[in-house]
């Protein structure tokens, strides 16, 4: 049998029907639903007199519109409220499980899927949300769809697709201190561009990827879409399996053993052929900061803002000029001289427990710089929030002057009340720096959680690899996570805290030696 890539295997396992021209009906194992992209799909279903094909394949939560403060009073904005209530009603009418706004399991859809074990290796997973690529970290084929396709999946449990091409991003070597999964993926996007992965499924491989925790791998796959690829993938290994064991929705007992045996095959075969291979030396990656209005406009923290005049391509040159104007930046300015007004730590990219630990470690014992107008920490789910509180992270943030919020998408896209005002500049752990993304006229710089935390303390970007950027007093050993032993009491709550420590960005061997 010919050697297959991981993507080939996942694809082949889900073919229901194929046409000679390559149009293929593929089966969808898991459908995640949120309030923004589903109301019109449910309406379509009703108008056609259809019902969900397999209701237990669906899992819903409200995340985009939900307020991150004062939730007990409901949602103030009547339009947002109607959208969230519409989701509640649709799920009730069709019998779909929903983690409603006041359920502790509620959170960002791409955080709760893995947290609950609703995301499993070998699955096809879709959601009306481009960051569905996140779930590819588990060796699942996961991608975002539009609302028409949401309706299609509800009605048929299938999608009509054409197979994408295979791309391999191989990253060997050891990451430097202070360099995280976020820096890896921003560096990849900087290298291949925001359209570099268009038409491909990207598998991320190599020792630097293997050395990441599941949360780090999720950060990488989350932003595959920012490189143009609908889906990102990481092969299954012990890290994957350890993460999933005993999660509420993961198989149990004999079924677990059988599943694990099957998941062990979810990797690209030796000799599998990729249409495109990109090699990156992990040791060369530095902390990254975006400077423009597209994620590909990214620099290392020790660089200076580029000059459009040096760009030969006229379309790119014009894009750079426009971006510099929007961002109010001048060529030649050092990244570390960029001052920010607000800081946002959150989003489906970076709102998991390890992200909060990494940020808290930088913040511990410090205060926000006096020039910072607002700094938000928005946990990815109610369970992440509780875990963080058990570890005392909320206290670290609060004492420094951060606001500790309820879970949701929040200022990543500013659909709720959390937003930038015109002209405000933000260090953000989210995924998109588009014009107006975080609020009308707002300016976004994408960074890792540790870099965002450091910017909050210093008031400007700093190179966290340098001693001067580090907290003055000795740090405690990074999270031995006694709290990891904490057992959850809620019925279907996650019983499995994260196996990795805050030092997730170091390869596994290093991590062990630290412990």
């Amino acid at each position: 049998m010919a050697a297959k890539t991981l993507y080939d295997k996942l694809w082949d396992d889900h073919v229901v029907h194929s046409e000679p021209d390559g149009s293929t009906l593929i089966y969808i194992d898991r459908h995640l639903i949120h309030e923004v992209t589903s109301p019109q799909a449910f309406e379509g279903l009703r108008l056609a007199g259809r019902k969900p094909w397999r209701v237990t394949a669906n899992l819903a939560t409200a995340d985009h519109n939900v307020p991150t403060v004062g939730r007990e009073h409901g949602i103030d904005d009547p339009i947002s409220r109607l959208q969230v209530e519409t989701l509640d009603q649709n799920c009730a009418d069709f019998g779909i499980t929903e983690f409603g706004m006041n359920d502790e399991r509620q959170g960002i859809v791409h955080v709760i899927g893995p947290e609950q074990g609703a995301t499993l290796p070998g699955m096809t997973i879709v959601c009306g949300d481009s960051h569905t690529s996140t779930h590819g970290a588990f060796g699942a084929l996961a991608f975002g769809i539009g609302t028409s396709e949401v309706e299609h999946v509800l009605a048929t449990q299938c999608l009509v697709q054409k197979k994408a091409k295979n791309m391999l991003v191989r990253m060997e070597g050891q990451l430097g201190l202070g360099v995280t999964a976020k820096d890896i993926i921003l560096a990849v996007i900087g290298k291949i561009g925001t359209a570099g992965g268009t038409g491909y499924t990207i598998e991320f491989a190599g020792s630097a990827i293997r050395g990441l925790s599941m949360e780090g791998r999720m950060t990488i796959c989350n932003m595959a879409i920012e490189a143009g690829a609908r889906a990102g993938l990481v092969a299954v290994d012990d890290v994957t399996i350890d993460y999933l064991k005993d999660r509420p929705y993961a198989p149990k007992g004999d079924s677990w053993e059988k599943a694990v045996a099957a998941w062990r095959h979810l990797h690209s075969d030796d000799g599998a052929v990729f249409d495109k291979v990109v090699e990156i030396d992990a040791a060369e990656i530095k902390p990254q900061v975006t400077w423009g209005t597209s994620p590909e406009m990214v620099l290392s923290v020790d660089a200076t803002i580029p000059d459009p005049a040096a760009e030969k391509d006229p379309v790119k040159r014009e894009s750079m000029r426009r971006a510099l104007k929007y961002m109010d930046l001048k060529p030649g300015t050092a990244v570390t001289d960029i001052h920010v007004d607000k800081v946002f730590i959150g989003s489906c990219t970076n709102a998991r427990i390890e992200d909060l630990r990494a940020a808290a470690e930088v913040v511990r014992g410090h205060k926000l710089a006096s020039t910072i107008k607002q700094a938000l920490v928005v946990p990815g789910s109610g369970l992440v929030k509780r875990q963080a509180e058990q570890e005392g992270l909320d206290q670290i943030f609060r004492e420094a002057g951060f606001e500790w919020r309820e879970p949701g998408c929040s200022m990543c896209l500013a659909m709720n009340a959390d937003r930038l005002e015109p002209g405000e500049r933000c260090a953000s752990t989210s995924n998109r720096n588009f014009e107006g993304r975080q609020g009308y006229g707002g300016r976004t710089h994408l960074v890792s959680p540790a870099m965002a935390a450091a910017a909050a303390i210093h008031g400007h970007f700093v190179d966290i690899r340098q001693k001067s950027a580090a907290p003055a007093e000795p740090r405690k050993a990074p999270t031995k996570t006694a709290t990891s032993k904490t057992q959850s009491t809620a019925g279907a709550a996650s019983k499995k805290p994260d196996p990795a420590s805050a030092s997730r960005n170091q390869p596994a061997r290093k991590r062990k030696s630290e412990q």
Partner: protein
Amino acid sequence: MKPFRRVTSRVAPLDRANVDTDAIIPKQFLKSIRRSGFGPYLFDEWRYLDRGEPGMDCSQRPLNPDFVLNQPCYYGARILLARENFGCGSSREHAPWALEDYGFRVIIAPSFADIFYNNCFKNGILPVVLDAKIVDKLFAQAGPGFDLSVDLPTQTITTPYGEKIHFEIDPARKYRLLHGLDDIGLTLEHADEIRAYEERRRESAPWLFPEYA
């Protein structure tokens, strides 16, 4: 879905690369639970000088005179000319809904983001990929009186000078667009195959079929 055969119209040139779906329709308008009514808010942050909110009467808002769609010679354009990676970012189908509601039926660009490209076909919009050099030339030509005729059956664009430009399109997508077919109805013709697949998978991978969700 509206069938698509042929559109002849003036061409609005939007000379920016990497136009994202946040720019096509900003997030505050995504709170709507309806499928229609997004046209007035298309490119809201570029088109108007004030901050747009759902429910605003857009006829009273200050227009940005520099934005291409506000130039009278492009009023009524049904063809949008764009640069590479058009429609990148969020998967929101509100982007093609807004474009369609505004009146666009064709978008020509050197490349599109995958999800957006796919979403266009669900809404009777024809996304046409042309070589970057040809797109460059169209940008140079676009202006008052420069109308294009886009014919799907023959996969041909005809310029006012009689020049014919061929474009490629996936045959299955072309067929569905020409006939305005309901994808769900077509898929359900394979219902027996879907059930047979489920039965096989239930045997080989039972953990994918939990009794609860």
